[in-house]
């Protein structure tokens, strides 16, 4: 899937223009709003302008539904408007993301019972970022329905959905987080440049130096043909993928948040040292945090949460995680990924309820949590279930291990160990960075870009993993 990705020449030029014009227009909201909206649509429609129509349609329908919900005194009308919006949003996802999966699964099932009449397979383009902006739209109308936020104008909703730093792969922003910022012009004298630049630089390094290198040197070769690799290589590829996906996705999010900060907007945090978690519950408070809270607030809690006894709670946990898995993609590998997390969360909860406070030593709890997460990643990364089971079986095979090299080990360990660094250290680094002269900061950032490009080499930056969702 082609697209305008953050670490590219095209995006650098685009951002520079947007940065200048955005701050020039900031004191004039009537000019700034259409500008930032058009800029975001240009970013989104760079490859295929037709996708913009989809985004516009989503904004129009959800704004209309939210207005009806906000204005109607009738509970029935409000509920109908909410249901209509959710059906529309989920309908979009179903058509664009799940139609092929549904048809081929149905076809397999019919074939299995001897009714082999194939359903029509239709090739449908998956618009980039559809899962993100759809979830954002649902959260907006539900929040209006719950009176957690006020209904906004079409322009505001359109910017909320399309604001380019978060449009393609999150964070999934709630209306209450961005709309108030859109209503108040940002102060050009107080740009949060320290954290912004550090996040952009850090995200660039995570993506180009760690994630892409690990993918190229160990993860992709092993997951292409696990049977051709030794147990040591397979095991390192599993840990390597844990490091890769963290650096890839959090690298993207860091850049998204950093870019938004330079434009004067604060987006919610999406990662908080997830591999330091000592329980699955903690992991989900630290990994893809905006998705976890979406699943909690708009799925787990409406399903009943933990209000109706342990059995219902376990069922709700499992359902939430299975649907969370399916959100990533229409494949059984993602369903099993969600199933592993759902089962582990339920088991953990049961143990906690039966035994009280956790009795495992901290290091053991960390070790178990990390390995459950890695086990689930095997399914997440594998192109099909056959490869996933080959990877799991391959951990115990012997043979030479030419892919187990010092750089790969180093990158894997560093990507995971760096999360143990206390957040205060990063804040000190930000303060130090801001105190440097502008020239020095620019030179340092420029050198970092050159180094990142050299690390990537001729093959260029690989697409971010979460762009496909």
């Amino acid at each position: 899937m082609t697209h305008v990705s953050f670490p590219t020449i095209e995006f650098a030029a685009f951002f520079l223009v947007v940065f200048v014009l955005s701050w020039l227009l900031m004191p004039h909201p009537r000019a700034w709003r259409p500008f930032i909206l058009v800029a975001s649509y240009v970013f989104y429609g760079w490859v295929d302008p037709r996708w913009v129509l989809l985004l516009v349609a989503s904004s129009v329908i959800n704004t209309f539904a939210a207005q009806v919900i906000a204005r109607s005194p009738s509970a029935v009308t409000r509920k109908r408007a909410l249901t209509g919006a959710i059906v529309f949003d989920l309908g979009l996802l179903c058509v664009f993301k799940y139609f092929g999966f549904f048809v081929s699964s149905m076809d397999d099932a019919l074939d299995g019972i001897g009714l082999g009449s194939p359903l029509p397979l239709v090739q449908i383009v998956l618009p980039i970022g559809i899962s993100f902006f759809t979830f954002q739209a649902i959260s907006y109308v539900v929040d209006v329905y719950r009176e957690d936020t006020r209904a906004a104008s079409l322009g505001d909703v359109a910017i909320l959905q399309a604001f380019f730093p978060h449009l393609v792969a999150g964070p999934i922003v709630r209306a209450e987080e961005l709309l108030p910022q859109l209503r108040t012009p940002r102060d050009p004298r107080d740009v949060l440049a320290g954290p912004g630049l550090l996040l952009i630089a850090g995200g660039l390094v995570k993506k180009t130096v760690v994630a892409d290198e690990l993918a190229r040197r160990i993860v992709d070769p092993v997951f292409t043909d696990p049977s051709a690799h030794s147990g040591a290589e397979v095991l390192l590829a599993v840990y390597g993928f844990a490091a890769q996906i963290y650096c890839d996705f959090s690298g993207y999010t860091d850049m998204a948040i950093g870019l938004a900060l330079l434009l004067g907007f604060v987006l919610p945090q999406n990662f908080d040292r997830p591999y330091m978690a000592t329980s699955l519950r903690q992991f989900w408070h630290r990994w893809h945090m905006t998705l976890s809270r979406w699943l909690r607030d708009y799925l787990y809690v409406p399903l009943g949460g933990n209000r109706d006894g342990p059995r219902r709670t376990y069922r709700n946990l499992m359902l939430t995680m299975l649907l969370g898995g399916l959100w990533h993609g229409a494949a059984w590998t993602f369903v099993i990924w969600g199933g592993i997390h759902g089962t582990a969360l339920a088991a953990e909860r049961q143990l906690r309820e039966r035994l009280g406070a956790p009795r495992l030593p901290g290091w053991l709890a960390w070790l178990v949590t990390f390995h459950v997460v890695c086990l689930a990643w095997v399914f997440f990364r594998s192109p099909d279930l056959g490869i996933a089971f080959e990877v799991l079986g391959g951990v115990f095979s012997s043979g030479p291990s030419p892919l187990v090299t010092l750089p790969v080990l180093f990158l894997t360990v560093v990507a995971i160990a760096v999360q143990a660094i206390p957040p205060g250290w990063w804040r000190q680094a930000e303060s130090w960075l801001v105190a440097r002269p502008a020239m020095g900061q620019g030179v340092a950032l420029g050198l970092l870009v050159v180094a990142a490009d050299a690390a990537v080499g001729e093959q260029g930056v690989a697409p971010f993993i979460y762009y496909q969702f």
Partner: protein
Amino acid sequence: MPAGRVLVVLLVAMLVAALLNSEAIVRAGEGMNEGSTRDVVLSVGRPIDDVAGAVGLHLPRKGLDLAFGQEPKTASGTELEEGSTAILRRRRRGRAEPDYPQPSSGDPLDVLVTGDSQAEFVGQRLPDAAPSGLLRATVVARNSTGLTRPEFFNWEINAEQEIADRRPDAVVMVMGGNDGFNVLVDGELFGPFTPEWQTEYARRTAVVMRELGSDGRRPVYWAPSPTARDDEFDRIYRVQNFAVARAAQAVPGARYVNLYDNIDGGRYRATSRIDGQEVISRQTDGVHFTREGALAPARLVVAEMAKDFPVLRVGGP
């Protein structure tokens, strides 16, 4: 920090990056599709590159490339860019194909699958198309590359480096999707539907085949593009297939894998019937295979490989 100061930081960063990275910017521009973005990148990048080169600012980047183990993928004066069409006549001298050592489950065939982005899924499915345990594939896809723009990515140099690094038993090359550009022959530009383009494309293919096969020491299976949804691409790919078939006849150990005519009867289809199941076989760009669809070309490649390695024939030699 005031927005103006942030702008200074960004501008300085971009200037430093542009000066130290000017060669990479020009190369990136050369790798872009024809259009205004490419024109802008090249018209800005080339003068900067001239200045940077003149004052020695290429050196830090070269040092970094060395530190990261990156090898240059372009050079001037290679045979790929300029060479004789005599290479297309070489095999007529009557060289016999060598007998290649046959793989076994204890010593499977090490296959390097390379090419452009189309190589990715075809390479991934190659072991699935061969008898279990007899073939080990390493996939190295060089996205957006082809033979028509050696100034952006020189496949002769890359082939030499890959073979020296990996020493595979056999090579599968899956490439052609990016090769619709005009080529320069004796100072004149020719488009894909001219005899000059076809001869030049065949010549370049032969040069890379020879490098990948180390002049016949290992077999090379070259699979150019299959049919495409877009009519113009489709016609270019057809011409390209003729050129590759011609090159394969001239280079010892090279075999042409005809995906164009042998998948879906030579007519583009987005879905195919594979093992009794209808699957979406092409990606939405109308060119690339999906992972499910890539099994069909992988099988065609293995069928061609089985001519040199009979044990790879599904169902036994």
